[in-house]
């Protein structure tokens, strides 16, 4: 029986495309209504004043010190958090990728477990641990290591510490995903060819794990830029991150235009970081889909 091959196949393909579109539609509609439109509205807000076009909200970035201070502090905290989570997360991910299966499951579970507690609860937990008469200070004083309580919280230190705690999984998981895909034969080959463990690590394993390093760094950096609850609760007013600048402008000054302009600048810097990082690693790898 002679059957045309192209006809039914093309029809089938079209039907599949329509189905895919149909399945995507609800999610797409939600994203457009709840994210894209509000963002456009936000951008619109920042350049409108009294029914006309204005750049006054953006001029404040150059004139108002608090803007510069806040952005600098936010980026500094983001850099510190990114570097420290990388230093803490790399050995954990390495151990998980090298360990026998049941051990790696255990290690990853320990990393992900705090995920299940809310950020708010964890911020208060840190507050209890780190405050003047908290667990850490009283333990150190009981051991006679310090005479007076250390300032561990209500400052940048406390903020950074808690942020690292919250974001560590975002570093470990992409690192682990990348490391797990490095064939063991490559490091075995490296050592059989005469490379010492350090040589094989620096020449073979580390370069091959770089996509995970960059993915983890971008995720953690970008997430830190928008952190709000943690610095608000643990910063003690001494830490003034960009998200707090936005909230002050709305809660205290009712300056929607100013708040919008800050959000737009923050958003653009995130886009810029993503753009630069995708030059190093394809977007799909940062999102862990490849």
């Amino acid at each position, binding site marked *: 029986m002679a059957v045309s091959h192209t006809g039914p196949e093309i029809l089938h393909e079209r039907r599949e495309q329509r189905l895919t579109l149909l399945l995507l539609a609800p999610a797409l509609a939600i994203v457009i209504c709840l994210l894209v439109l509000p963002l456009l509205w936000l951008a619109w807000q920042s350049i409108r004043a009294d029914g006309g076009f204005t750049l006054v909200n953006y001029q404040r970035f150059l004139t108002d010190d608090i803007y510069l201070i806040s952005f600098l502090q936010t980026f500094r905290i983001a850099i510190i958090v990114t570097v420290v989570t990388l230093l803490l997360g790399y050995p954990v991910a390495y151990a998980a990728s090298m360990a026998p299966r049941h051990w790696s499951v255990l290690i990853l579970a320990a990393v992900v477990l705090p995920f299940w507690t809310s950020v708010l609860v964890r911020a208060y937990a840190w507050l209890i641990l780190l405050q003047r008469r908290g667990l850490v200070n009283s333990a150190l004083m009981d051991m006679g290591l310090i005479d007076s309580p250390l300032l561990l919280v209500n400052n940048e230190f406390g903020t950074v510490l808690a942020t690292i705690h919250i974001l560590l999984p975002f570093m470990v998981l992409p690192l682990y995903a990348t490391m797990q895909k490095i064939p063991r034969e490559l490091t075995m080959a490296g050592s059989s060819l005469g490379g010492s463990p350090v040589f094989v690590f620096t*020449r073979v394993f580390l370069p091959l794990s770089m996509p995970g390093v960059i993915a983890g760094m971008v995720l953690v950096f970008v997430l830190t830029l928008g952190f709000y609850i943690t610095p608000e609760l643990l910063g003690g007013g001494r830490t003034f991150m960009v998200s707090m600048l936005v909230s002050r402008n709305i809660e205290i000054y009712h300056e929607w235009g100013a708040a919008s302009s800050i959000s737009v600048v923050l958003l653009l810097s995130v886009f810029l970081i993503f753009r630069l990082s995708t030059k190093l690693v394809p977007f799909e790898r940062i999102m862990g889909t490849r």
Partner: protein
Amino acid sequence: MSKLSFREPVGVSVRSATKSYDDFLALDNVSLEVAPGEFVSILGPSGSGKTTFLGILGGFVQPTSGSIHLGTVDITYAPPHKRDIGIVFQNYALFPHMNVADNITFPLRARHVPKSQWADKLEGALAMVELSGYGQRQIHELSGGQRQRVALARAMIFEPRLILMDEPLSALDKQLRETMQIELKQLHHKLDATIIYVTHDQREALTMSDRVAIMNKGRIAQIDTPERLHDWPADSFVASFIGEATLLPVVRKSADTAALGDTLLRSTQPVPTGDKLFLAVHSEKLIVSDGNHDTNVNVLHATVKDTLYQGESIRVFITLDTGGELSLRLPSNHSGRRLLKQPGEPITVLLHPDDTVVVPQA
């Protein structure tokens, strides 16, 4: 252009190597002596322990007991990077983030060979595997055969005293595999290196090796020249693994006779003792009688069960009168067809005492 020169090759001596995991014996008291410059294959089905054996030689697996010597040096507990063994891995294990030249010079960098010598050595290694001018290529730009050659060049550039190959040709297609077999063999002669070659492909092992070690259940069942393995298997496992011999249970009657049912068979080789013995018959050893034959050959009476035309030969399946089935081959020419019988017809086949092999059960 400098030629890769190998240092004096050394032998390998594995003495009573055993590796156990919890309740599983992966390697059971394995001993192997490889002469300097020899090409020895380790042949076995998957799960026979050959991967563990390779791991122990390469230093990736610590033996539970036993020792490994490279020449006179005990390397049982030496880490892989201090063993001076070039390994060609099954999937080549080329570094994807380096080009061909960086892959091949990796051992030189790792071993702190002065950079001034790199260019010459690289040139020599590339020429040896016929990849001159490919240094700047990326790994993903190479074909399977080319990757294989890069892996070889990389394992040889530091002039190791021993080369281990773990199924190096298994990922290549049949034609390329046969070409590479010849090339590897030539390379072995050219380098005069000691090579241990792990494979599950018996034809590959038989064509390339000076000697082949057959592994089964963590033990070396037999280590011998390809000819002897084929003609004089040590036990029923080797007999059925090499050349797919048919095994028929026999009973020992004397030092040179055994009984297949009520037929007494003579052998020129001593018949082993033991209760479970088998006659190992390769189809090419059976000859169809034309009525005139020597009195000293073993005669088997049978009925033709089926015939199968296979181009250059005709395969004949027969049922022995004493029970059991065998197959033999007749050339598809005039003399072959003259001896061919139709299914159901009786047939007399001969087995020369030189070809009568009785093996104990493995």
